[in-house]
């Protein structure tokens, strides 16, 4: 009887250890890391001629062209 209790105790302990091991499971989802651009550097659109680095002039031109798409302003209705 004592021997049976002894084995039962060992089995219970092993089972408890096995079940507890589940609590320590770490997340296995890979962490996503955004890559870094590996290609050649590009220059801003206003760097070259005809703007020669004048960003304000470029923005003004783009704004004017964008408003040309607005016929409510273009035809003044």
């Amino acid at each position, binding site marked *: 009887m004592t021997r049976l209790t002894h084995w039962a105790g060992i089995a219970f302990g092993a089972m408890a250890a096995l079940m507890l091991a589940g609590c320590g499971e770490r997340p296995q989802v890979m962490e996503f890391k955004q890559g870094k*651009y590996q290609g050649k550097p590009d220059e801003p*659109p206003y*760097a*070259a001629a*005809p703007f020669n680095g004048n960003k304000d002039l470029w923005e003004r031109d783009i*704004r004017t*062209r964008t*408003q040309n*798409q607005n016929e*409510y302003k273009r035809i003044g209705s």
Partner: protein
Amino acid sequence: MARMKFLCDAERCIECNGCVTACKQENDVPWGVNRRRVVTINDGVPGERSISVACMHCSDAPCMAVCPVDCFYRSEEGVVLHDKDLCIGCGYCFYACPFGAPQFPQLGAFGVRGKMDKCTFCAGGPEKDNSEAEYRKYGRNRLAEGKLPACAEMCSTKALLGGDGDVIAEIYRQRVTSRGKGSEVWGWGTAYGRPDQRAPGAPGAPGAPGSAPAPTGGKS
């Protein structure tokens, strides 16, 4: 300046494919590659709508996230571009893109895939601006000339708007509030004037003798 964006007004698009043609002509796009295309739903039935689709230059671009060689970059104007010298033509970006924007030229027999090609918002690529190399690889750099994409500027009904996101959103908002909705957009009201805008006493005007309520029709 905010981010560069495209906005297509489905109420105005007439499926003329002018944007597709303009893009192909401007950028010398090879056969089999369509950087832009017009998608039509409910084709041939009332309620048909068309919309012009190309790269949407996403703020959190999936193509950028999945590229194994990290050949994508975003310009300071928010345009998503890529370096063709680095691209290996794997096609991951095509699977990731919800708009089917990345295109692959068929370089030979058995469907061999070439380097990826997509809409550049007419902003070229990482070569010297307006150089021969840039034109050959990416097409024309209109942005560096102070111009907007050819597709948007060519659009005859101005359904396709391109430019600073805040500005085109404001143009669209003004348009929608001016034209109304339902039969005011397409139908009797547009053709003959809305009942509230007709001259007093004119046939069909409210309060005119024998006037019947203006019928409503056309697309809803």
